[in-house]
């Protein structure tokens, strides 16, 4: 057992559902007890999805435990096939189905007999894989399935697109700023004249997966999701892939140069150097911010970075290389890919921490006492406790990672957004600092004007205690309304009863 106050990566089934529900017209069936379909809530509430989440729970209860699951699961698959006419139904194993050691593969075979759609069992073990690994595997599994199917039917298209083209792999539902990143990547590709052959899985149809091989190369912007699919396509078709995350000015340039290399190796004749220089020096504001006086004042300040591999590594490089900030510690919770992370960041930080124990990370931050943290929501909490500002750069996701306004982390607009994030993280701290330096100077008695809720009414001790239970946010208003109520009625004292009578009377 592990004592866990916080989870950086979710359980495996969340990863599977993120992939299946990203595709158009794919439905997932979960074999799990009631309530385990909270993925639906996350889609609806965090991502503000306008559509019903295409996930149905085939619930396990005492009856099912007693009688066996097969009939219910198969019924639910065939029912959804009729109701939603999906292209594919993904049967998603859960911690419960793993423990019960159900033969889900057999259920799928049974169901396929009666369904018009394809049915697939996601091949993930709850206890062996995290959300991220499960998503990577499921994406690869679905791609492989449809490539094999097309191959078998002789429906694989021949050749490449006329112009250089790309498949963007790994954009998915409930991914950290994925939607805006995808828009920015499409703009970047358009800027350098690369056609987007496909984006998967977000918004893609499984029926079109057979067209993936027509692209000149694959772009895998995130380290966590998409690499397995890209590897599969490389092995199967020799398709090259670019897995440099275009985050930060330097890495974006490196990604574009790599694309140039890949395109030219296939007979293209492109040169993006001028584009890169123009974007770097004049269009994107991030390099200029780095050189400006605002950023100069950040030089040598200490920061701690923690997050998933993609964002923690990219952020470490940006802070250290582009902004002159000292990254005292860089860390990731993606333990399975530890070596890659160390290779990426060791040059740019003093210390590396690989852990998914939030307590260990909090203790390290407390020891280091950096000027700013760039981490997850958890580190934001730690920062609040230690009064260290924290910019959020990585999942686990939170509703604030789904802003309505455009906020990509990737590409050139991403560099601007990251510069703002860095600047605001430090200045908020500075503002606090200034307030603390000067806040103590009002040593003369202050005569407040119009902002005081004080009065001459007597409150009984009980009423005062009750009042104190009311959040400060509304306490002033309730106090004022209650006193008004008491004065109107010539009450000499405010009791608990009077408080609630006042509430009923004025709806305070």
């Amino acid at each position, binding site marked *: *057992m*592990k*004592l*866990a*106050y*916080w*989870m950086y990566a*979710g*359980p*495996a*089934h*969340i990863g599977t559902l993120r992939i299946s529900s990203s595709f158009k017209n794919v439905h997932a069936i979960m074999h*799990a*007890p*009631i*309530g*385990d*379909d*909270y993925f*639906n*809530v*996350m889609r*609806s*509430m*965090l991502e*503000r999805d*306008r*559509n*019903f*989440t295409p996930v*149905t*729970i*085939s619930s*396990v209860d*005492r009856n099912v*435990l007693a009688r066996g699951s097969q009939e219910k699961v198969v019924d639910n698959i065939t029912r959804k096939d009729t109701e*939603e006419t999906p292209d594919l139904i993904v049967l998603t194993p*859960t*911690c*419960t189905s*793993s*423990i*019960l050691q159900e033969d889900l593969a057999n259920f799928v075979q049974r169901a396929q007999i009666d369904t018009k759609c394809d049915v697939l069992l996601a091949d993930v073990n*709850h*206890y*062996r894989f995290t*959300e991220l690994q499960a998503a990577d595997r499921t994406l690869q599994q679905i791609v492989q399935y449809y490539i094999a199917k097309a191959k078998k039917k002789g429906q694989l298209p021949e050749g490449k697109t006329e112009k250089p083209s790309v498949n963007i792999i790994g954009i998915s539902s409930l991914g950290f700023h994925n939607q805006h990143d995808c828009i920015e990547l499409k703009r970047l590709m358009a800027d350098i004249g690369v056609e987007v052959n496909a984006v998967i899985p977000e918004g893609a149809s499984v029926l079109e997966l057979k067209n993936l091989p027509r692209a000149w190369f694959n772009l895998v912007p995130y380290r966590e999701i998409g690499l397995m699919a890209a590897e599969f396509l490389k092995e199967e078709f020799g398709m090259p892939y670019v897995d440099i995350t275009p985050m930060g000015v330097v890495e974006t340039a490196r990604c574009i140069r790599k694309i140039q290399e890949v395109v030219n190796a296939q007979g293209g004749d492109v040169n993006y150097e001028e584009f890169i220089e123009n974007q770097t020096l004049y269009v994107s504001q991030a390099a200029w911010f780095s050189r400006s006086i605002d950023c100069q004042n950040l030089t040598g300040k200490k920061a701690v970075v923690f997050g998933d591999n993609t964002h923690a590594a990219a952020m470490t490089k940006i802070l250290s290389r582009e902004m002159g900030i000292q990254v005292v510690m860089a860390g990731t919770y993606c333990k399975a890919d530890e070596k890659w992370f160390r290779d990426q960041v060791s040059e740019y930080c003093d210390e590396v921490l690989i852990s998914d124990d939030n307590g260990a990370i909090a203790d390290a931050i407390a020891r280091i006492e950096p000027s700013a943290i760039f981490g997850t929501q958890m580190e934001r*909490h730690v920062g*609040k406790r230690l009064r260290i500002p924290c910019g959020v750069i990585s999942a*686990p*996701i939170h509703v604030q990672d789904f802003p309505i306004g455009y906020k990509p982390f990737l590409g050139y607009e991403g560099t601007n957004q990251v510069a703002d994030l860095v600047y605001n993280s430090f200045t908020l701290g500075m503002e606090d600092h200034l307030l603390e330096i000067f806040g103590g100077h009002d040593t003369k008695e202050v005569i407040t004007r119009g902002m005081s809720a004080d009065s001459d009414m007597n409150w009984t001790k009980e009423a005062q*205690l*009750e009042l104190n*239970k009311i959040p400060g946010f509304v306490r002033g208003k309730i106090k004022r309304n209650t006193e008004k109520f008491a004065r109107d009625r010539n009450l000499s004292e405010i009791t*608990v*009863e009077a408080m*609630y009578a006042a509430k*009923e*009377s004025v*709806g305070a």
Partner: protein
Amino acid sequence: MIADTQPQALNFECETGNYHTFCPISCVAWLYQKIEDSFFLVIGTKTCGYFLQNAMGVMIFAEPRYAMAELEEGDISAQLNDYEELKRLCTQIKRDRNPSVIVWIGTCTTEIIKMDLEGLAPKLEAELGIPIVTARANGLDYAFTQGEDTVLAAMVQRCPDKPVGEVEKEERNSISKLLNFGRKKEDVAVTESEYAKHTPLVMFGSLPDPVVTQLTLELKKQGIKVSGWLPSKRYTELPVIEEGYFVSGVNPFLSRTATTLMRRRKTKLIGAPFPIGPDGTRAWIEKICSALGVEPKGLAEREAQIWESLEEYVKLIRGKSVFFMGDNLLEISLARFLIRCGMTCPEIGIPYMDKRYQAAELALLEKTCREMGVPTPTIVEKPDNYNQIQRIYAQDIDLVITGMAHANPLEARGINTKWSVEFTFAQIHGFTNARDVLELVTRPLRRNNSLKDLGWGKLVKDAKV
């Protein structure tokens, strides 16, 4: 004490469909806040932990008082010794957080692998010197709010059976005693003479502290003294429960706690409608008065006065239809109140329907429908959400009260919704808070009328229904 009369007019169905609700371990979210000196340890998998953190949005504060005992492969395959593992974790919790009680929350996984939490707890409790309460809040047997029922039922056993004397006090955790010393003064102080003589009464159900105060005061107005609440603000202050005491529940999902109080502690249950809405609150007080032999006074006036103050809200919903998809087991009480407000209600979905424990409430619902001259709702246990949505479209419902998974998609299709979970967290009990219920209920109606005028009714293209 439980009313026997079945309200025959109500139509019960059990759809046994695929429906969404929250897992019963949700109760941790409010119970760890309610019981200030507690620590809740959820013994389950990453699935449980991620739910609490991400979908429930349970916040991590400076000093968290809940955590997961995350089961790993070794635990499942029984390669590890459960007792030793739990001992290791609880020792750490005791060292780091020093709670007055650790509540073990069992999950589906502990059920399926048949982990003997009830057997392990007393042994570890003795070894560590800290009370350990065990509750099986699993999703195989319970839904959403019933998690609270499992915890309270477990805590019933821990309530003292006689007033705590000086000697027993010494036995309690000395630090907590020190900290709590003098706290009793916080409670509403009244002289005994204001009360009628009656058998002691203990209330059960977790409510925010201000609501506890309000309901206690309402009963005080009738001369009725509440001897204690389960749960109390602190584990160290659990109410005394002696044989023959009266008990009464304030929440509709506490049937197991009620049964335990009757069977194990030999108390007498007052089966009343629940104090939600002015009608329900009045009926609740009247039933308690009647059980304790006290003559209720001024209740009709009080109810009328509350109704009057609610009119501005009531007129917004009068004649409109409401549909409960079913989520938190508050559905019957809310539907009864809204029907009294003049709404119609074709269907009440509910995850679980205990007709005995909710008998008085069901009777009041049936009576309300009759008096308001509206058809009685169909009560659908374990509903099928997909089918419900077809029925909602067909019936052109004005307001759907639903779980979080369906709210945004329904809104995007121009259907007004209100989260059921808000009623779980908001202060809805008693006369005073009736306004808050209607504030919540009318919010989408007030809101969406103006948006319709802007042409923003439907925000999906070619929505597949």
